């Protein structure tokens, strides 16, 4: 399998407080269309074990495929539980500070570049998207 193919089959797992994950995924799909393998876990009402189990459930079902876990806030419970869930997993990255541009970059770049490169690209897009608009 080529690197490009690998990144095409990369899953996205969005883990956030409140209902943000569901709405982020739904909103991204309004813009770029229905996505395969993009999961939302709105985690803050669940206990830690439950959040971890859901993330692990997705990862285990997909075998050794790549995945990116997107979390809303560095140091929050969703972030901490995601780190716990992917401990010892190869080929799975966690990106904090998820926003709409991040998810759109993920949706549009999957399959066009190698996995590691895509991760860097997505983080860069997220950072570039936060700026003062000064016309």
């Amino acid at each position: 399998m080529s690197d490009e193919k690998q990144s095409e089959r990369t899953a996205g797992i969005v883990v956030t407080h409140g209902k943000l994950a569901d709405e982020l995924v739904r909103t991204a799909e309004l813009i770029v269309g229905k996505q395969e393998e993009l999961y939302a876990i709105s985690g803050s009402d669940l206990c830690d074990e439950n959040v971890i189990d859901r993330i692990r459930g997705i990862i285990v079902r997909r075998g050794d495929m790549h995945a990116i876990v997107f979390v809303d806030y560095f140091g929050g419970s969703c972030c901490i539980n995601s780190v716990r869930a992917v401990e010892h997993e190869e080929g799975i990255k966690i990106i904090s500070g998820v926003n709409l541009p991040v998810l759109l970059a993920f949706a549009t770049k999957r399959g066009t570049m190698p996995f590691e490169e895509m991760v860097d690209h997505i983080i860069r897009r997220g950072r570039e998207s936060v700026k003062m608009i000064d016309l």
Partner: protein
Amino acid sequence: MGGEYRMIALFRVDDRLIHGQVILGWGSVLKPDRIILADDEVASNEWEKNLYAASVPPEIKVSILPLPETAAQIKRGIFDTERVILLVRHPKDVVALMDLGLPVSEVNVGGLHYREGRAKVLDNVYIDAEERSIMRELVKRGVILDGRAVPGSRAVRLNSRVV
């Protein structure tokens, strides 16, 4: 916490220990110098310790200690000149710290999340039968149980809801 240990600005029971509500919610109001995470399990696991320590902004110091060491260091006066948020996972840890000689007049029971077997007390507080009886013991010892998730939440005393 009250009494002679005034440097404890918040004593909180939260099964997530360090997370956004603590760092942002309480932290931005109380501006603590230090967070003490008092938990035997976390304190004995380097990986978990690093995970929690990495979650705290650099301007806040972190101590991750087993319960006996927590009581000993507080009593020794090590934190007397600081503002401290003290976190434990479970109501029984409050009883344990009291039995280790820390006087406690008030505790914030702000985050006990839903899991199988726990019944709802508040949106942010679910307890099982054992936790209920432990909280009843705290009430019997004269401890005020504050149920706020974050400082701006509606003030709710849990005392009458667990007896």
